[in-house]
């Protein structure tokens, strides 16, 4: 069986036997798996590649909740599926509130696990796409001149050329030229597209 989505599954669990069994199961579904015996081991060795995380909440020293917090602080963006044992539901709920994708109570059905893993990896792919798209928009935006950026800012809030000319103290003709250059440099086919790009930039900043 072939995994429908790509990406590495990072397992963080202090129980060696359990880690091994997870690897056995996930590899049977052709997933790539890397395991870590502790939160610290993950933080020391994570290679930054795309994937998702299966995280045990109950661990000595740094537990699952704490690792989740550290990852947020360090900007490590991995979709997290929390694994909880018997009686750990309150901890799992906290993890969900802190942005975990889902949680599974041990022992769990493999179908459910694989479905969740697929969902997490798809989510990771989306996040990667979003991230690269934003990067492109940002690069285009960076190539605009100061005046062009000013014009773009006014265009996307719906102002007419005449109003922009008045506001900036330049001729409407000049506004026309800047506006065409903005559309071209931003590779925007239409005004709504430019508005969307501006929104994404605003969201990221």
């Amino acid at each position: 069986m072939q995994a429908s989505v790509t990406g590495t599954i990072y397992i963080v669990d202090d129980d060696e036997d359990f880690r091994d069994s997870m690897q056995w199961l996930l590899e049977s579904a052709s997933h790539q798996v890397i395991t870590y015996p502790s939160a610290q081991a993950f933080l020391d060795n994570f290679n930054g590649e795309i994937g998702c995380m299966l995280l045990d909440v109950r661990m000595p020293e740094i537990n699952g909740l704490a690792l989740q917090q550290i990852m947020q602080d360090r900007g490590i963006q991995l979709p997290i599926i929390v694994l909880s044992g018997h009686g750990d539901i309150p901890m799992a709920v906290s993890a969900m509130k802190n942005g975990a994708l889902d949680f599974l109570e041990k022992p769990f059905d493999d179908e459910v696990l694989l479905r969740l893993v697929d969902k997490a990896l798809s989510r990771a792919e989306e996040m990667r796409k979003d991230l690269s798209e934003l990067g492109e928009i940002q690069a285009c935006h960076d190539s605009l001149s100061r005046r062009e950026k000013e014009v773009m800012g006014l265009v996307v809030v719906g102002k007419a050329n005449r109003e922009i000319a008045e506001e900036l103290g330049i001729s409407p003709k000049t506004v026309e030229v800047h506006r065409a250059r903005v559309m071209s440099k931003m590779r925007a086919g239409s005004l709504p597209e430019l508005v969307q790009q501006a929104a994404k930039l605003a969201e990221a900043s």
Partner: protein
Amino acid sequence: MNKKASMELEQCREDADRYRLLVEQSTDMISRHTPAPDWIYIDVSPAVESVVGYTQDEIIGMSGYDMFHPEDADNLLTRADSVRYREGMYTNVYRYRHKAGHYIWLETTSRTIRDDDGNPVEIICVSRDVTEREEAQRAMRRLARVVEASSDMIMFCNHDTRKLTYLNESAYHTLGTEKDTPVIYYLNQLFAPDVIESLLNDALDHAAIHGVWYGSVPMHLPEQLNRVAEVREIIAHRNRRENNKVEYYSIIGRDITLRRKAEEEAKRHQLELAHMSRLLSVGEMATGLAHEINQPLAAILNYCRGTQRRLEDKPDDAVDTVTRSMELITKQAKRAAEIIKRMRAFVRKTEYQRLEFSVNDACHEVSHFLHQEAIDHNITFDFHLDEDAPPLLADKVQIEQVLLNLMRNAIEAYSDCDKAYRPVIISTRNAGGYIYISVEDEAKGISSEGLANLFEPFYTSKSTGLGMGLSISRTIIETHGGQLWAESDGKTGTHFHLKLPLRDK
């Protein structure tokens, strides 16, 4: 006057004088009384003063009857036990009032003088003070009653024949016979043959030489096998008249059936309490234990499903895949079974049983039991074990229960403490015939007030739990002849120490 008659008269006078002299010199009181009911003194010898305190002049004319002790006054009339009759003479022993007010014991022999018609004319009495003799006899009778009524078994045993010549009521009771239907016993019937050889003969010899022996010799009672008794003391009695030879022994024993029963009852009660406390501990640890068992079960499920997928995907590698996965599954199943086994061994209700075992191993085993709790509380177990510690002879389950209690307390001591490094230090030491075990934490410690109440039943600082753990732990250690105590400066941690004798003390 006829010379012969006057000589006879002279002879009579001389005789009378001699008799008077005899009467006057006698230490016995000789008296003449009117007949009943008053027995008024008519005449009395001078000894009256030393016997009853009155002078002759004082007492003559007084009623003899009035001076009798009220309980003894009618002895003669009622022919009481104290009165003997022989050839017209009565001998009576009775209490009689002294002039000073107290009573003395008198033994009086009396004869009634009658006229020709048989009517009583007067009574002649010879009385003797027998107070000392009578009181000694009474003391003897009281002693005999004490011996008879004693709750100890008391038996007299002939030195030569070893026949039991006397048994008190307790002895008869313990031997299972009635005093009314006595059975003849010999000392050797009451002991097992090897005990006679090894203990009883030595005890008798010791008593014969030193007069008395103290100790404990178990008795073996024929047809009374449910009774437990032992001889505690043997006194040898010598014949003082004849060459000082040992004549017989007083053997004092005790029926300890009831005490033994009470001891066994107490022991059973303690076992039950300990068992209940173990059940409670396991109950309190249920979440952790469930989690621990869950791990291998989840792993087994993963292996099974992973294997099925592999078989669907690559049926050619079936044998290799299944072989490998069976190994992995077996390991996990064993792991789960091990956890259950450990728990069952701990909660099982056991009779008190002494086994030889290593305290170091016991410390490790108990820490494994607390594996999950230690993880949840970020605890590090730190062992300082004396590798030369000899094996301990004790009830292993109970000692492990104590260790579990102490380690759990140490772990829980950190619950209101924000230290990052949380060691529970377990050390063992072998010194002076004792094994010392210490369980120490570096949390906040216990106040001196808390320390004072620590081992009281139902004393607890936790929101859950009954507060029986330490109380039961101390009972367990003390039953093993050891001690359990705690030390704390109230700031930087608590140390629990216990010591157990390597040999029975």
